């Protein structure tokens, strides 16, 4: 296995862990962290692809997304805090306002 393949498998694994975590846990913060894990999986994939193709675009893009993700993480956590203040719990089940 080349390094790139290893990295892609690693990325896919991270992504899968994230998905499973997101779907199974009900704590909002954990769910949020799971989305971050999915993010990182994708980023590793980018780097791996860049490596495979032999250029720097994948890494540049990963850095770019990383910055955005940092901002987004701050925003997301802030939202979670606000949600907690509203309901006093972190249970995702307590937010079902969109039920049809």
């Amino acid at each position, binding site marked *: 296995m080349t390094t790139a393949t290893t990295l892609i498998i690693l990325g896919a694994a991270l992504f899968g862990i994230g*998905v499973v975590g*997101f*779907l199974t846990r*009900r704590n909002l913060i954990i*769910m949020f962290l799971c989305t971050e894990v999915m993010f990182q999986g994708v980023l590793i994939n980018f780097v791996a692809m860049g490596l495979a193709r032999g250029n720097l675009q994948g890494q540049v893009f990963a850095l770019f997304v990383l910055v955005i993700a940092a901002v987004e993480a701050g925003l997301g956590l802030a939202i979670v805090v606000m949600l907690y203040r509203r309901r006093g719990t972190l249970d*995702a*089940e307590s*937010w*079902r*306002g*969109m*039920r*049809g």
Partner: protein
Amino acid sequence: MAILIPLLPLAGAALVGLIGLRGLRARSHWLVILPVAASLYLAVQLYFQVQASTQACAHGVRQMFESFTIYQWMLAGPDSWLNVSFRVDPLTCVMLLTVLIVSFLVIIYSVGYMRDHHGHAERGYERFFAFLAIFVFSMCTLVLAGNFLVLYVGWELVGLSSYLLIGFYYQRPAAAAAAKKAFLVNRIGDFGFGLGILLIYYTFGTLEYANVFRMIQAGVTVEGVPLESARVTTIALLLFCGAMGKSAQLPLHVWLPDAMEGPTPVSALIHAATMVTAGVYMVARCHIIFAASPYAMWIVATIGAATALFAATIALTQFDMKRILAYSTLSQLGYMFLALGVSAFDSAIFHLFTHAFFKALLFLGAGSVMHAMAGEIDVRRFGGLRKSMPITHATFLIGGLALAGFPFLAGFWSKDEIIHAAFESDMPWLAWVAVVTAWLTAFYTFRMIYMAFYGRERLPEGVEHAHESGAWMSLPLVILSIGAIGAGYLGVTIHRGGFAGIFEPHGAFHDFLSRNFGRPEVSHEGGGHLLMYVSSLIALWGIATAWYFYRRRPTIPMAIALVAGPVYRLLYHKYYVDEVYDRVFVRPLRKVGEICYDLDRYLINGVLWLITLVPRGIGFGLRRWQQGAMQGYALGMVVGLVVVLWWMLMTT
């Protein structure tokens, strides 16, 4: 110079609005009296100019007949503008003088009338004078107009001033309703009038009087196609619709009696002497159009005669002095249209001229009575005012005699001329209608005079003693009564050699107007002699009957009313025209309006609701899938992703 005549009163009105309402208040009338006086002076100057130029040379006449453009107003098509243009000719002069003289006197009278007995101005005093000034402006615009568009402008603006002035006592529901009715009935006429103007443009490509008239005389349209007579008749009848509305002819007469809700000077000025004659003026102005259509002339004459008789019969049974005078006005306007319909255009204008004096006089006299009786105007509630109100009595009597056609007073000359012209025309039976109406006129006029001024003095409750009106009011009465006596002498025509040569026929009035109407034979020639005696007798007979009924044997009228019960009730309720209109037009139309609104709410919105059912139903079906739990949605996404991935792998 001509343009100043309407603008001065307008400036007066604006000044009242700007400074009268704040500073001058009870002295605001000067802001109106002075401009109107100036306009009157200018109109007299204009008259002398026109007089000089008509006598000078043919060229002067031709130039005079062209309208002059003030400015360009609207764009009617490529490279052609509709202009604001004026035109000054003898007819304009006559109308201007009539309007301005009567306006001037009525405005002076109003200074006295619009105050209480202590000289305090009524509420809205300034507003009243501003409205009067707007009226003078509008009426001058109307008569000075050089094309149909400006005529229409003046036409609508006098309607507006009439609306404002009838509704002057706007807190009285009756006054507010009468104002609205006047405006709306006039608008019905204007609907036809407006269409007539559009059709004129459609046919002739211009709205300037001179151009239209020349093309009609040449019998061509703007495309150079020969003019069909049906087209001319349509135009004439549509224009006449406007005249019926403004001059309150059958069947659009209903607004005028109600218009008496306005202050009495307004009734005198607008609803008797000047504005209501605008229809007569318009038909006379467009006599070339009407003359080109015998059918239209027949309609004009018939409607005129019918209105004359119809209104006179109603006047027999009324008790409100102003309403009697209003129906009398209708009747006299009917005479004028009769004259127009039999091509005696100058006679119609002559009657318009004399009528303005004596009818304004009668109304102002009635106003004087009303002022003294604290607003009471029902002749059953008072009587015998002869002693206590000598000036009013004397002038009112002169006015009444002139209206009744008493020999040698103003109405006598002009009315005889009309009857004579009708006999000479091809519709002599209309003349008989006019003769009967003349008798009725004399009768109802003196019925009113006997009831109000003669017999034992009776006063309505709350009035201690009747008193003569002050100088502001008496002076115009006296001046107008001079007019009511003398105005007829300006145009003595048919009584050739009558009365030992005292009244030689000279026809100066008609000569002056002949620049407009040509010189019809009938005015100067013919056997008016016999007619003169007959009509004098008829007038005297009518007066004598009234004397017998209301002075000698006051029980007779009651007996007649009892015997002819249904007829009397029919007349007393004015032939139930208002009620019929209400049932036949107003209520159904309102019903249609309600149906429209219901259609909006139920049908159209119902259809919309049905349309919205489609997305609504789809949404209803899909809502089950919306659990509201975030993880459920995420699971859906993952499943979708897996499906897509699987499909992609399978296809490649």
